């Protein structure tokens, strides 16, 4: 799979599989089984980037899956790219070293590829960011960033660590929310955008959108594939979440076509700043 290069030279897969799959009602054993199957399937098909978070309560599940895959020789550690995040509850404890050690232990890893603050939690994120920078320098993580950051947060971070801005920001980003000012700032500062809810969770208005459907027909692809390709082609890294093999393939089989510049513009023009996840609900004071 195609890779992108972060500002510090670290290579990152151009598509990431999210693991925030709401299956907590099922048994733990079944979840491990399903996750293991889906991750193995993804790896077999060339997808090697995975995203989790302490708040998804599945770091330990993924740890078991990854260690099993590595032990069985299905993949080498250096070939997979693992992202995890520090949640708000952990940020309030103000001890990032403790948090990275907990994540490493749960994930059964020696290092994390990308470590993010899950939210720019008011009154906490600046100090915690400073700690992230120190931990990055120690080598326990290969790249750092912040999820759900906006321009104002990047500007605040720049004031305290002007030499070490986030390598990645993970935000809700899709054709219906293209945050032009944020994109411009990230381009200027060489910060890579990673897009969650990359297909706007396929809400009815997305599935039924005329432009996307016309383009899907034109290129002989699905609406999802048009959106994933749109992301990859502009250099943002889309995250999709599914344990379904058919959906996994749909999301990653997008490297055999190109969207024309004019069609890319048509998709950009769909922007209406639609946030599926209203950020302040997850982070009061956001």
């Amino acid at each position: 799979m195609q890779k992108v290069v972060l500002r510090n030279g670290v290579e990152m897969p151009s598509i990431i599989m999210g693991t925030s799959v709401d299956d907590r009602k099922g048994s733990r054993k079944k979840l491990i089984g399903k996750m293991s199957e889906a991750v193995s399937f993804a790896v077999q098909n060339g997808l090697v980037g995975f995203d989790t978070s302490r708040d998804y309560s599945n770091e330990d599940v993924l740890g078991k899956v990854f260690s099993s895959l590595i032990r069985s020789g299905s993949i080498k550690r250096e070939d997979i790219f693992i992202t995890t995040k520090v949640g708000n509850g952990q940020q309030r404890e103000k001890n990032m070293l403790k948090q990275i050690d907990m994540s490493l232990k749960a994930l059964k890893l020696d290092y994390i590829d990308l470590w993010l603050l899950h939210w720019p939690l008011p009154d906490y994120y600046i100090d915690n960011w400073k700690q992230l920078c120190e931990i990055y320098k120690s080598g326990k993580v290969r790249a750092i960033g912040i999820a759900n950051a906006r321009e104002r947060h990047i500007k605040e971070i720049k004031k305290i660590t002007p030499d070490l801005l986030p390598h990645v920001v993970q935000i809700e980003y899709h054709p219906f929310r293209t945050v032009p000012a944020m994109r411009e700032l990230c381009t200027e500062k060489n910060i890579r955008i990673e897009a969650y809810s990359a297909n706007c969770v396929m809400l009815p208005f997305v599935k039924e959108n005329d432009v996307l459907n016309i383009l899907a027909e034109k290129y002989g692809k699905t609406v999802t594939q048009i959106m994933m390709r749109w992301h990859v082609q502009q250099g943002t890294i889309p995250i999709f979440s599914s344990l379904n093999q058919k959906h996994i393939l749909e999301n990653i089989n997008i490297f055999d076509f190109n969207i024309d510049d004019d069609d890319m513009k048509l998709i950009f023009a769909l922007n209406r700043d639609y946030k599926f996840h209203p950020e302040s609900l997850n982070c009061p004071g956001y």
Partner: protein
Amino acid sequence: MKRKLKIIGLFCLAVDIVLFFVSKILFIIATVLILLAAIGGEALLVLNALYKRTNHWKNQFLFEKNFISGRGYRDNLTRNLDIVNLGSNPAKYGLFYENVRGQNWATGSQGLEMDFEILKYFHSYLKEGGIVLIPIMPFTAISQYIKTKKGYWDDSYYIRFAKILDPSQTRQLPNGSKLLRKVKYPLIFDPLLIRYLFADVPTDNSLEITEQTMSAVEIEHDADRWIEGWKKEFDAAAVIDFVIDGKYIPYREESVSVLRQIVEYCKERNLKPILLTIPMSEYLAKKFNADFRQKMVYDFVEELNIDGVMFLDYMFDSRFDNPSLYNGSFFLNLKGRKLFSSQLMKDLGLLI
């Protein structure tokens, strides 16, 4: 709570098992007691659930439908609101959004701090550049004084916010952790509430009233009642005290500070804060003389000294002072609410 109950249950079971081997009589007594406690506990939970279906409980939280929380946003896809308002009862009864994407975020009695907490939690529902109406009413300037009054902002005041805010915010409120439990188990905290299972109160339909339900004499009396209530609330002997008494100065400064923070918060997030006064009936308006109006409203807005923030003043606007637009002397009825809100939306350019 459920976890604690489980732990207690397991503990009782363990004790019972031990007693089985120690003494048969003690075992039987303990088993009966445990069973009675379990049945009693379960019955209390059932009664608690039944109480939460009464109007007495639900009336306190009728505003909840205006707030889509973290639990509801996946099903309710409303986003990009054009306009919302904060504020207390005058805003609750004064603003009605028709043909615009708006939400009334006034829950009833609602101080400036709670305005701010609500804004902090729900603002992402607004579109970029969306309008946040910040009501300034006759006593907003000194509203922080209420903090000094025991029993005004108690659990019954804060519990409404505990129902809609994030738990992390509620924990910061006075008795915050207790409030979170109280929202879940009100009957356990106040067993006397059980009476509403047998004699419930009617559904609160005060927002649906379309006409003035009082006679002229009653409205006059209602206006006097409001004034007396405020005098008592703020420990003032006469209305003139609000203008001349120095004891309010620190509270006024506090109100200025909180309002400035709210405005700044909006600006940082590319929202458009607008200061707004809401009309009142002529009966009540005449109780506030020119000095009061100047000092408590207009000077206060000046003190806020916020560059570029629009101030829309309808408080003593003769277009909206007709008593037929109100229910009582202070709160607009549905007809008045629609009339005023429609004019406001036109003045804001949201309606043609």
